[in-house]
């Protein structure tokens, strides 16, 4: 768009908004020939928040002063007095005036956005059909036409009566009497529906009740005549509604969608709601059209019973209402309705008629009426409350459109559950019912946290919603856990739910909430509950297994948080439980595999106090246990998988150890055997993985096993100077992982795998002395990583990987003597630390930042050295190295620095020494 076209669009828009909505498109036809501009104007008109109902209907002078019309004629009828006026026009009492016979009738002069001729034509078209409606509860249509003043009108049987709501109020009808009266209305509507006539504008003022207590429906089918057609899209909505009473309009009418018999079901639902509670389901007073639309189309009305007790403020949550209405309570209902009697069945009946989706309402008015009858006769009704799953899936669906709007709906839903929980407490004496509530809330927490969390997890902007979701779910769980003491199965559910919530909060390798502290709290609660259960029932292997699992997750999280003491304790507990399980049933394959995994956990938790050596020792035990298990049952898939994993982990650990030894300058004689052993372990892992892949080709993870193991072999060989031999292994991994990624192009993790493989390739090339190739491989990796971090800017792991790759590229440049390039790449790496620190501010970042500073410092040192002690570079080097040192010292002071970082401090100190040397003249 250019400023000029915008000016033109504005001009057209300004003119169009002054017109009534129905006139706008006629105007646009002539004023706006350019289709693109027209689309823009129409979008703006549709979005225009100021288009309110007051502005839309045409006002005709006649309607400003209806009394002026008394005494004038409409066709053969003389108007004798005004009866009522409404959105559609003014109703007059009239008598037939042509000498035939004196019949009192009602004449309605129509106010419509449509042109008179259109109405007249449509009316002629529909008249026959409408006149054919002959039913004791339908006011007959007698005639219609256009007055001499050019106003369309129609003539109906005159009904001496008052609107149904006023009638009920005035006579203070009992609940049963109201329902009976309502069924009369249903009968009439149902009759018309069988003749394929939809009322479209059912509301109390169209439902009169005579002195004799007979209901009479007015204006059947008229709405269709005097409004735009249906189903033609949003443009007509305003008109359609402008002439009607929005209070009773269905969501499809608000949206300008197809009007069907289900539309009448909805409006009848509103009428019934009002008859029962005296209130409308939605308070639309003072709202603009767009606000009404949102309210009616997107929010649930309060249950009628709730409306009577608390009013609107306590809305929502309706779906969890069970049917507490007991026989004796129903017997009690006397005059009018009391909230108790509305609870349960009547709530469900009304809410079913008020469903947003036409297809979820009663299929027919007859069915609706039938449910009312069944209620009156105390029979079971057909309407059921929504299931939670339904609501939540609806929520998720809306989420796909806009998380922002949906989060509010979700909170409303949550508020409802809180209410329900509270009610559950109040009804504690009814133990059975209370337990049912538990069941519901448990399901809720499960669904919320697992099903829906996962469904929205990948949506942009969903994090805030997910966070609220988790917070609320936790609140219920905390409430519940007080009541779970004497209910072991509930306690167990709770523990597992806490565990899963913990995963959601802190899981490392997904777009998680990154709330490690919160995750820890949840894990701890889970462990606590499970320990209680185990204490009461020590031989229960189910509880033991759950406790082991919870401890396992918690231990790994503690390691990540570098809370070593607790981590060690928890790791030991996990190991103890697994050993106990194996003792209880030594031949149980599953327990043996759990023991293997527990050795891994134990190893991870020992890294701080035991260092690489002891850690590796635990992984060695895992392999031994894995070998034994495998030997006992060589065909078992899980046993094979478990051993393959153990082999790989030990291999990797040995490499860590070797790497560390190399960094601290240990003799090669000590280092080499570790690499050689690692290579052997990795080769074995490749073999086992290939076999698994062959035997279970449909399991993708085995392909990844092969790839990972191949990479390990390739890099291990590169380390011991057999890079050329190792290269095909890495190429093989690349091939497998690229194929996986190609099958799922949107999967960032799969892309990351490919990027990572390029880094291993770079490593191998570098080790082979092919630094040019190494740089190329690294840049390929970076290219993919940049793409991923753009797709998913808040994924910590992706950012970290990018950071590390830039650093590695810098390392290679530095070795090549390309100092300026090295510096540039280290700085890029540092930029990613900055990006990470906006997501998270934990120890890991401090370590990474220190590392980046050290590398930048080193690059400056190299520059200074090459430039005969360039004092500027030396100062830069010193500043960065000091920062690097400070960060590590701070960590050490807080006792949060892992053993492996001590030598880094020494390294930094040594480098600082160099910067302190006076510049060579």
């Amino acid at each position, binding site marked *: 768009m250019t400023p000029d076209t915008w000016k033109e669009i504005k001009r057209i828009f300004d003119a169009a908004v002054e017109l009534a909505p129905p006139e706008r498109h006629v105007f646009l036809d002539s004023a706006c020939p350019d289709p693109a501009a027209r689309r823009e104007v129409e979008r703006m008109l549709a979005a225009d928040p100021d288009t309110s109902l007051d502005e839309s209907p045409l006002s005709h002078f006649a309607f400003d002063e209806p009394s002026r019309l008394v005494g004038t004629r409409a066709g053969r009828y003389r108007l004798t007095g005004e009866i009522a006026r409404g959105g559609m026009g003014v109703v007059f009492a009239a008598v037939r005036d042509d000498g035939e016979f004196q019949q009192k009738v009602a004449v309605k002069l129509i106010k419509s956005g449509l042109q008179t001729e259109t109405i007249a034509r449509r009316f002629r078209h529909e008249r026959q059909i409408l006149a054919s409606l002959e039913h004791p509860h339908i006011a007959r249509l007698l005639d219609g036409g256009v007055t001499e003043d050019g106003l369309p009108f129609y003539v109906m049987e005159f009904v001496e009566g008052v609107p149904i709501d006023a009638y009920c109020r005035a006579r203070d009808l009992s609940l049963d009497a109201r329902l009976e009266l309502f069924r009369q209305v249903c009968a009439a509507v149902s009759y018309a529906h069988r003749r394929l006539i939809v009322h479209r504008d059912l509301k109390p003022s169209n439902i009169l009740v005579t002195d004799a207590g007979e209901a009479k429906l007015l204006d059947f089918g008229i709405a269709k005549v005097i409004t735009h057609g249906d189903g033609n899209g949003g443009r007509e909505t305003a008109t359609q509604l402008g002439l009607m009473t929005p209070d009773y309009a269905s969501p499809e009418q608000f949206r300008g969608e197809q009007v069907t018999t289900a539309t009448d079901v909805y409006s009848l639902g509103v009428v019934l709601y009002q008859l029962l509670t005296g209130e409308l389901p939605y308070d639309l007073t003072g709202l603009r059209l767009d606000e009404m639309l949102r309210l009616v189309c997107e929010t649930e009305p309060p249950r009628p019973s709730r409306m009577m007790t608390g009013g609107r403020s306590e809305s929502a949550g309706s779906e969890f209402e069970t049917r507490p209405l007991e026989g004796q309570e129903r017997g009690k209902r006397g005059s009018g309705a009391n909230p108790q009697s509305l609870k349960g069945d009547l709530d469900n009946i009304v809410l079913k008629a008020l469903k947003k989706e036409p297809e979820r309402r009663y299929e027919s008015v007859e069915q609706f009426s039938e449910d009312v009858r069944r209620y009156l006769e105390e029979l079971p009704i057909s309407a059921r409350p929504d299931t939670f799953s339904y609501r939540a899936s609806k929520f998720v669906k809306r989420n796909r459109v806009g998380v*922002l709007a949906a989060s509010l709906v979700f909170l409303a839903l949550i508020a409802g559950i809180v209410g329900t929980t509270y009610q559950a407490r109040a009804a504690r004496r009814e133990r059975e019912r209370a337990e049912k509530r538990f069941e519901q809330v448990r399901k809720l927490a499960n669904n919320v946290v697992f099903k829906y969390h996962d469904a929205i997890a990948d949506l942009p902007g969903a994090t805030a919603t997910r966070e609220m979701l988790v917070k609320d779910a936790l609140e219920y769980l905390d409430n519940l856990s007080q009541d779970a003491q004497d209910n072991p199965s509930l306690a167990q559910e709770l523990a597992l739910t806490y565990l899963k919530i913990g995963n959601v909060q802190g899981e490392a390798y997904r777009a998680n909430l990154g709330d490690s502290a919160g995750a820890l709290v949840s894990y701890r609660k889970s462990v606590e509950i499970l320990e209680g259960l185990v204490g009461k029932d020590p031989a229960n292997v189910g509880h033991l297994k759950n406790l082991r699992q919870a401890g396992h997750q918690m231990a790994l999280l503690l390691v990540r948080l570098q809370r070593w003491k607790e981590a060690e304790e928890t790791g030991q507990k996990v190991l103890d439980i697994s050993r106990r399980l194996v003792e209880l049933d030594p031949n149980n394959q599953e327990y043996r595999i759990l023991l293997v995994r527990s050795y891994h956990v134990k190893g991870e938790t020992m890294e701080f106090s035991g260092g690489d050596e002891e850690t590796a020792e635990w992984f060695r035990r895992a392999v031994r246990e894995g070998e034994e298990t495998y030997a006992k049952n060589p065909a078992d898939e899980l046993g094979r998988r478990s051993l393959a994993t153990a082999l790989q982990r030990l291999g990797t650990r040995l490499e860590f150890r070797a790497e560390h030894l190399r960094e601290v300058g240990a003799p090669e004689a000590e280092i080499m055997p570790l690499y050689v052993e690692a290579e052997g372990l990795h080769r074995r892992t490749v073999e086992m993985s290939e076999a698994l892949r062959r035997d279970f080709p449909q399991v993708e993870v085995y392909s990844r096993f092969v790839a990972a193991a191949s990479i390990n072999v390739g890099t291990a060989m590169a380390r011991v100077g057999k890079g050329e031999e190792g290269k095909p292994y890495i190429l093989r991994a690349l091939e497998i992982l690229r194929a996986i990624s190609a099958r799922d192009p949107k999967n960032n993790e799969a892309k990351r795998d490919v990027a990572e493989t390029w880094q291993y390739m770079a490593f191998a090339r570098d080790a082979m002395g092919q630094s040019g190739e190494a740089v190329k491989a690294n840049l390929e990796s970076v290219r993919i990583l940049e793409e991923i971090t753009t797709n998913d800017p808040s994924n910590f792991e992706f950012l970290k990987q990018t950071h590390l790759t830039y650093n590695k590229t810098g390392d290679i440049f530095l070795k090549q003597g390309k100092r300026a390039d090295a510096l540039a790449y280290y700085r890029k790496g540092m930029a990613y630390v900055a990006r990470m620190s906006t997501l998270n501010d934990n120890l890991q970042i401090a370590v990474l930042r220190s590392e980046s500073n050290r590398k930048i410092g080193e690059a400056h040192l190299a520059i200074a050295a090459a430039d005969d002690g360039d004092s500027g570079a030396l100062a830069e080097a010193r500043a960065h190295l000091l920062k690097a040192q400070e960060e590590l010292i701070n960590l050490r002071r807080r006792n949060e620095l892992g053993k492996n970082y001590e030598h880094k401090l020494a390294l930094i100190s040594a480098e600082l020494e160099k910067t302190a040397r006076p510049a060579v003249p």
Partner: protein
Amino acid sequence: MAEELTAGVTGLLRQAQRGDRAALDELLPLVYRELRGIASRQLAGERPGHTLQATALVNEAYLRLVDQHSVDWRNRAHFFSIAAETMRRVLVNHAISRRSEKRGAGATLLALDEAADLPGRREIDLILLDEALTRLAELDREQARVVEMKFFAGLSNGEVAEVLGTSESSVKREWRSAKAWLAAQLA
């Protein structure tokens, strides 16, 4: 607030209003600093979904910075028109930083009141709004200013007209089409 500063700002405001460009340049950083201070105090305790009243913020800044006795309402309007752009920057920056924060990494919701009869009184994604407003400015600078002043500083049509030297009805017209366009963009 030091009296000295208040007097200074008030004087600068008067000069700026008379078209003194230098005075305006001096004024802007003062307003920005003050607004940011107030905003960050208020936003510090902000939870997701917390309601933030842009207009109230600007008003607070005005009360702190300007000597109420020696300026008339035109000065107020002028101050607010200056503050509007600043406010937009403060809020959008905040929204962006919040978006990337560890917790609450969703888009910042901002419920606006008074001035904010923008699309359906629902929460606006500020960052999207800011982007849309930038696009609008490319089409019509002055119209974007109208939105800024009304939305971010809560000026009335009359005040905006005064600042821009145009008529109230023209502001009303521009505001309506801008709102409709923005609403369509944000829908």
